[in-house]
Each structure stands twice: as C-alpha cells, then as structure tokens.
C-alpha cells in the first residue's frame, strides 16, 4: 500500500484561513512540481464520549474514543483509544454495533474533504517525501502565503504498527493531526 503523509495548514499569527489560500498552496504543486489533481475524497472522524449513569464518577473510563472512516477503505472502520495507544480495525458495521451498545455516544463528527495529489515502506519513502515537502514549502514561501504546512508525525510504533504502511497508519495520522490542530488553536 502506498505511504500517505498527512499535513495540516498552520496559518500565520492573526491570519484567518480561507479556501483561496489553500487553493493557491495546492496550485504550487500543480504548476511548479508537475502534480495532477486526482479528485476529492472524504474521511470522517467521530469523537465518542462515554455515557455515564453518574456524571461525576467517570473512574478510569477513557474520556475519548475516536472513530475513523477512511474514504478509500469503505468496508472498514477504525477505533482509536489514544490514552491506551490502541487501534482496532473492524468492518464498517462496527459503527452500527457501537450505536446499539449505547455505552459511548458520538459527540462531534468531522468530515475531511481532502485533495489527493498518489513505496510501502515508511522509512524508504521518508527521504523522497521530505525532499518533496521541502520543495513545496519553498514554493509556498515564494508566494508569500500567510502560513505553512505542518507534517503530522505520529509515533506509529507506540500503537504497535510496523514500517509497512497500512490504513491503520492513516487512521493514527488523522488522530495525531487533530491533537496537533487543537494544540495550535489553544496556543
């Protein structure tokens, strides 16, 4: 499976992100780097929270359960418990199963519309992707766009994942990306 690297855009201090800025950043790839737009795909992240009989006594229940539906893996669903560094792969029916249990309820759903502009070894692909990323950042800087891309760098080994890239790696990247984004918003 080809390696996927997830990036999120960090706007400069005081700048509001607009679609215009992102379109320009993507155009850098098309015009300067010879990339071709392949089309959009949608990924959905669902944040679940435990439903408690007594709100005050949550005990050692995880405060957050994350569900990920990847556009290119429609038959699968992934659950992540970041506190336990655990990722569970399941069929797409697992989402309906969790709904039936009523023990964890969805609180926030985030839909990602991603522009996909297509090496299974992460280590082998690292140098190539880092070089590409540097070129892209330079091109973006030349356009004086008010922000820059930040690479998502999760520790795959923490979740017991290997060097060979799988959809589970992508799900972990999304979870880490959200943490980085939320930290950036707080700061």
């Amino acid at each position, binding site marked *: 499976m080809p390696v996927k690297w997830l990036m999120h855009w960090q706007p400069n201090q005081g700048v509001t992100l607009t679609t215009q800025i992102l379109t320009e950043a993507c155009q850098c790839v098309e015009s300067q780097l010879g990339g071709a737009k392949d089309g959009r795909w949608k990924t959905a992240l669902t944040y679940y929270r*435990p*439903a*408690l*009989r*007594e709100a005050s*006594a*949550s*005990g*050692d*229940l*995880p405060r957050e*359960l994350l569900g990920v539906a990847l556009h290119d893996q429609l038959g699968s*669903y992934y*659950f992540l*418990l970041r506190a*336990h560094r*655990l*990722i*569970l*792969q*399941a*069929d797409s*029916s*697992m989402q*309906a*199963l969790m709904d*039936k*249990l*009523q*023990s*964890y309820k969805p609180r926030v759903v985030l839909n990602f519309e991603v522009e996909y502009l297509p090496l299974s070894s992460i280590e082998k692909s690292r140098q190539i992707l880092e070089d590409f990323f540097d070129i892209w950042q330079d091109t973006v800087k030349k356009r004086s766009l008010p922000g820059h891309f930040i690479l998502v760098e999760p520790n795959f080994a923490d979740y017991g994942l290997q060097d060979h890239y799988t959809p589970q790696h992508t799900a972990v990247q999304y979870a880490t990306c959200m943490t980085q984004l939320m930290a950036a918003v707080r700061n």
Partner: protein
Amino acid sequence: MECVVQGIIESQHVEALQILLQGLCGVPKERVRVHELCLKSGPNLGVVPSEVRLLCDLAQPTPSWTVRHVGGAMRGAGAEQISVLVRTIVESKVGHNVLRFFYSLGYKLDHELLKEGFVFRFQRGAQITVTVTSANKMPKLYATDEAVPVTPGIQLVEITAPAAAENYSEVVAAVSSFCEYLAPLLHLSKPGVSMGIVPTAAAAAASLMSNSGAKTL
C-alpha cells in the same frame, strides 16, 4: 436481523443427526471450535447496561475474531404466533486486540465458553446455518485446552438464517419447513422456550444409523 430456533439432543444421537443433515443439506460439514467471551458494561458505563459477545474462531489455522451484539426480539401479536424468533443482530470482524479494546472501554468479562461441534451451511429457501455444539466451561481464565462440558451428554442445536424487514416472513417459512425434517430427532423452538428431548429420538436415530450402514456405539 436473523431468524433463530434452538433445541437439545442427547450426545448419543448426534451422529444420526449428522447423517440426516448430510442428506438434507448436500454440503459437507465444517468443524466448529469457538471461544465465546461474553462481556458486560461496568457499573457506571452507559445509561442502560450493555452486553457484547466476542467470538474467537479456533477451527482455522489462524484464529480470527468477530464481535456480535444481539438485539431485541420482534414483538407484537404476529411475533407471538410464529414459532421462530426474529431478532436484530449486528456483527463485525475485528482485529486480535478486540478484548483489550473492550476492557479499556470499561467492559468486564461476565462468562466464557468453548463451543465445539460442527456446522452445515446451505441454501434452502433461505441461507440456513445448522450448528450442533457442546458447550464447555473453562476451569481457569481463557484456558480453552482444559474446558469441560457444561451439560455432559447433551448438545445444543441452533438453526439461524439472516433476514431483512422486507423478507423475514419468507425466511421464517423456510426455517420452519426445514425444522419439520428434524422433528423425529429433536424439538426446535424459540430460544428460552425449552421443549426438552424428543421421545422418538432413540428410534429415529437407530433407523438413520442402520439405513446409512454406520455402526452404532
């Protein structure tokens, strides 16, 4: 959704049942060896308690896991009249870390069983699955190799068929009609409605064994 009926049969008549099923289904039997873990939500988790079953298939060279939630049975006057239970069911294949996942979510092990036996899967008006198993309990946690029968001398027969809201009456009819073939050997009814063993079972079994040329024990 699924349609389901259950019945019990004495272990000594299982071979005869197998011969009968072989003749009716026209497919070879498959081995069943499933470690079933029943998990229940911890004391404060969920406004209502919930239960989930983890099934580890030990019959294949590589164990594989499935998680299953059994929902409520169909209700109403219509449901009372039919002899087959129709209930909602959700199942998913899952990774090997599913037990650790549910423990981390706050679920606790309520009980575990090892089910051993055989299964016939075939098409006869509906996609029917007939499972014949003995239920075994473990003296120590997860000790599937040391399992002992819960009811020695008695095995459980379960017939299931997947159904949808649009077609469940046809599926019910297909299952009921199939059950009639098994009537000489066992009573099949809704789970929870116990009908006991069939008085004619011994005679029917003997007849099946002698017809097939198999040796009786």
